[in-house]
């Protein structure tokens, strides 16, 4: 299972990959994660690879190789859509974050992205606000991912809740549940 996680630096793609990694390990699989740190994290386009299987060699996923893309932002979903396998699907947040060329007016945020994406859109931001704060949007997406892939809910939720600060557990739990029900 090859999962590509994409988004905007600072959105919490690293947390999502680590939760998936922890879950895979708990299930007894080999797993490799590959992350981007440093400069790209400052609001740039970021991607994290998660590869789970019996034995994994390369930690990266090639174009046309992903079973699932988990996208925390809609434009980023489109940017990396070509990484999908033919049978693959995108699970994306409908949140729009304007990249600097759009902010400055040098480019336009593309219209009708939903029509070009094969998969499911989640209004993660609204659901996160419902759970307590916009910062919980990545837990909403992880809830949706858990349902989409048919993963063991209890095990996956535990992997998430053990990876976050204690005081945010309740909020993230609520966010996870809202995401789970949204798929």
């Amino acid at each position, binding site marked *: 299972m090859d999962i590509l996680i994409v988004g905007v630096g600072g959105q919490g793609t690293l947390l999502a990959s680590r939760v998936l990694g922890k879950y895979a*390990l708990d299930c007894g699989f080999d797993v490799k994660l590959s*992350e981007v740190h440093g400069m790209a994290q400052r609001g740039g386009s970021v991607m994290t690879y998660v590869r789970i299987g019996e034995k994994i060699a390369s930690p990266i996923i090639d174009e046309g190789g992903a079973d699932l893309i988990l996208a925390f932002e809609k434009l980023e979903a489109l940017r990396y859509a070509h990484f999908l396998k033919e049978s693959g699907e995108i699970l994306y947040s409908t949140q729009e974050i304007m990249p600097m060329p759009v*902010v400055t007016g040098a480019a336009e945020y593309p219209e009708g992205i939903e029509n070009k994406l094969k998969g499911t859109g989640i209004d993660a931001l609204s659901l996160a606000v419902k759970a307590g704060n916009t910062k919980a949007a990545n837990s909403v997406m992880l809830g949706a991912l858990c349902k989409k892939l048919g993963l063991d809910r209890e095990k996956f939720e535990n992997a998430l809740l053990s990876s976050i600060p204690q005081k945010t557990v309740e909020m993230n739990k609520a966010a996870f549940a809202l995401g789970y029900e949204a798929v």
Partner: protein
Amino acid sequence: MKKLLLGDFAVARGAWEAGVKVATAYPGTPSTEITEELARYPEVYSEWSPNEKVALEVGIGSAMRGARTIVSMKHVGLNVACDPLFTAAYTGVNAGLVIAVADDPSVFSSQNEQDTRLTAVSAKVPVIEPSDSEEAKEFAKQAFELSEKYDTPVILRLTTRVAHSQSLVELGERKELPNKAYERNIAKYVMMPANARVKHVVVEDRIKKLSEDSNAFSINRVEEGSKDLGIICSGGVYQYVKEALPEASVLKLGMVYPLPYKMIAEFAKSVKRCVVAEELAPHIETLVKAEGIAVEGKNIFPLNGEFSAKLIREKILGEKSEVKAENVPARPPVLCAGCPHRGVFYVLSKLKLNVLGDIGCYTLGAVPPLGSMDAVVCMGASIGMAVGFDKADPEAHKHSVAVIGDSTFIHSGITGLVDAVYNRAKITVVILDNRTTGMTGHQNHPATGKTIKNEPTYELQLDEVCRAVGVKNVRMVDPANLKETEEAIKAALAEEEVSVVIAKHPCVLLTKKLYNGFKVNDKCKKCKACMKLGCPAIVNGKNGITIDTSLCTECGLCKSVCKFGAIE
């Protein structure tokens, strides 16, 4: 027990298991996490050094005095540490000295794409290179053994993809070692000409012997497969080769300098087609060809960028895939919403100044709409370049500044400032003091008053440092106050000598607060004055100008540039 570990954490674990007692570093992506992790082990003395040269010098001293030591840095950090490195190869070590160096193929977070293996060849220092986290841990341990057996510093080379990937690692126990006995040995450690001449011969013999011995090292191995195709590779590339060409014969090199020539010659002879697959420089290829062994290499592979399984298939098998990416607006990294550097760059942009830049988050001041940067070369370079501007053009100082971060100023900006004062340059330096080492993920430094383990220590005062080297005009401002910042910079530019403006405000990411975010009210005249800030939270879209409350940190810059009171 198996654990999922980042390559960097695995290096730290390996060093810890090998009984390391001293760990030093200056933060640098993608090597930073090695020392951050080692700082969590109570058995290890760890430090953030002011720069990589000092880090290595501390390391040379501690290894000489008998404690196993690891010094970590990124590829460009090794440039800074080259002076001690080249001569440490001559002196050799006492206890093991391992230098973990992380290269950055594809330039994810660096200013160039250089290859540490070439530096190692010049320095005559052996290099070993792991291909995943398990090997990162094991090779770290082996590096200490090699260092002590051959009396040499050893470079443990990583690349971004190995340093920042996580894979399973079998954890072991720590081997607690007593310090090795230390004795004064002038012929070994005092590198004056008479001794250095003798030691140079020792170094050449050592490399020759290592090359011969490495034919039997278990970290160099042949994985037999089809005789039609043989690939010579190491590090992260090995994983791409296994993925792309599971049938091929593979010579996996754990040690990439010096090379096991007998093993390579036999391997090349055993296959019909022999290809060296290596990222960046043709290091292995050049050395192998010099031995008269025929291989392919950079005739098919690029000299830049990281590889992938797809690239290996494409270049070796000629397979092309027809995947097409959508043409969408780029999303370059930007200064965060609420970044204290924004206020300074807004003023520099408004005053249309030439800006000599430096290495850090504030390099992003070059991105439009701020677009306020003329050059970025290396750590500390901004101040020297500003002196150069002034010496080339006596009018330049009236419209130029050097900007440099707090951590970077300590790393290598202070000597530039000494030069400026000593040689009567008329420059303005803005120190962007955000109270941390930002880009690499918030490490302490000498001016934060905290050690790597967050223990209190002397807090270096940047203004006192400036005054001590002879700067008379030192101004402190808060960059959240645009008026105060602009006035200070203008006053500094008007002076005919060295001036320093310290713009002090903590990095917004250090405050883990949740914000409600500002809103734009109906007084907005769409004048777009706020858009000049280049704040990612302010959007000019279909519904006019709005603020993305999920990003806004209520820093107030937009409020202070809005003449209509439209932001609240």
